[in-house]
């Protein structure tokens, strides 16, 4: 189960996305060595997430580490 869980987490975060990379939590991401995060994931910034959801009309996916 743990193996599958890790695969789920890694699989989601390593997927390539369209669009430019955005990483407002760069300092936190670097210090936590969260290198598996790629693509336009918003890092630890819910306010930015809600703002982008409002402007884009997309739903929000919030993943908890």
């Amino acid at each position: 189960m743990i193996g599958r869980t890790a695969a789920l987490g890694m699989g989601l975060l390593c997927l390539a996305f369209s669009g430019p990379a955005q990483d407002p939590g760069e300092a936190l991401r670097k210090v936590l060595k969260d290198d598996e995060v790629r693509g336009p994931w918003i890092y630890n910034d819910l306010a930015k997430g809600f703002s982008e959801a409002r402007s884009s009309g997309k739903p929000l996916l919030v993943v908890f580490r």
Partner: protein
Amino acid sequence: MAELLDRFVCVRMVAANGMDLSIFQFEYNLTWAAMFLNADGTIYGRYGTLSRQDRDHAILSLAGFGKALEAVLELHGAYPGNKAALAGKKGPAPRFPTPEGYSDLKPYVKPIDTSSEGKAETTCLHCHYVEKSEYKSIRSARKPIPDEALWAFPMPETVGLTLDEDRRATVKSVAPGSAAAKAGIKAGDEIVSLDGQPLVSIADVQWVLHRAKDGGTLKAELRRGGAAQSLTLSLPKGWRRSVIGGVGHAAGTWVFRPISDAEDLSPDERKKRNLPYPAIAILIKWPDFGLLRDDVIVEIEGRKSGLSVDDFLAYVAQKKMPGDPIPAVVLRGGKRVEVQLKAR
């Protein structure tokens, strides 16, 4: 999956500092968890939970997560016409608006320190701290911890349902004699909504069960063989008190438990030690609180049978106050030894 995710604004939260607890209510003892929302804060659904190692099957899968994403996009497409049906996905007002409202979590008001990995780790507020602090608040007020908090986010198996982790909420099997069996739910049924809430995942079923009342009923809308079915799931008194996803695994129990890591003796070990069920047989796995590794608790306050680890922890959480003595007897090296445990 990439195409699906591209249709979402994706946020990765690594700490619960400042988290809005009126919106973000989920299994805080998570292995992996996610919430899906509209930009206005309306909750579409949840995914993920605590994935216990002693379960006989997985609960998280990429396929299941993909199905959840598809379901959320359907709900989003129908929004706000379905707003009323989604109302139940938001929980009651929390004790505090953010985790830092709890007195023991006040230090986390300061921003996360990113000067080093160690400093970041110690200033990040972990999700499971919320449950722990909630338990502390209740214990400080010298009140019993209620069933809804001790057995939070019940697994579907608690009502007899094993769901397919690769689908939204499709029934794999139904335990005979269970609440689900009595409701007439069958293997293969797709549960479309429960208690009026559209389901995107197993976590959504857990959410409905988490909010369900003792002795209450839940309306289940199903698809069976392509046809719609409507059934009623009756929850008997005490339904929540199940060893499945029970009390013992939760990080919050360290607030009150008078013993460290422990488990019920296996049937083989019971046989070897001549402790047939339902004799109390709680094996201590980690030395602490005056107990040694491999001690076996066989008597608690004069009682010798009918108490599992979960039962004992629930008893302490609900019937004992911090500091209350709990006399017990352990088997240590084959000998009976009297010990004095203490509720915390």
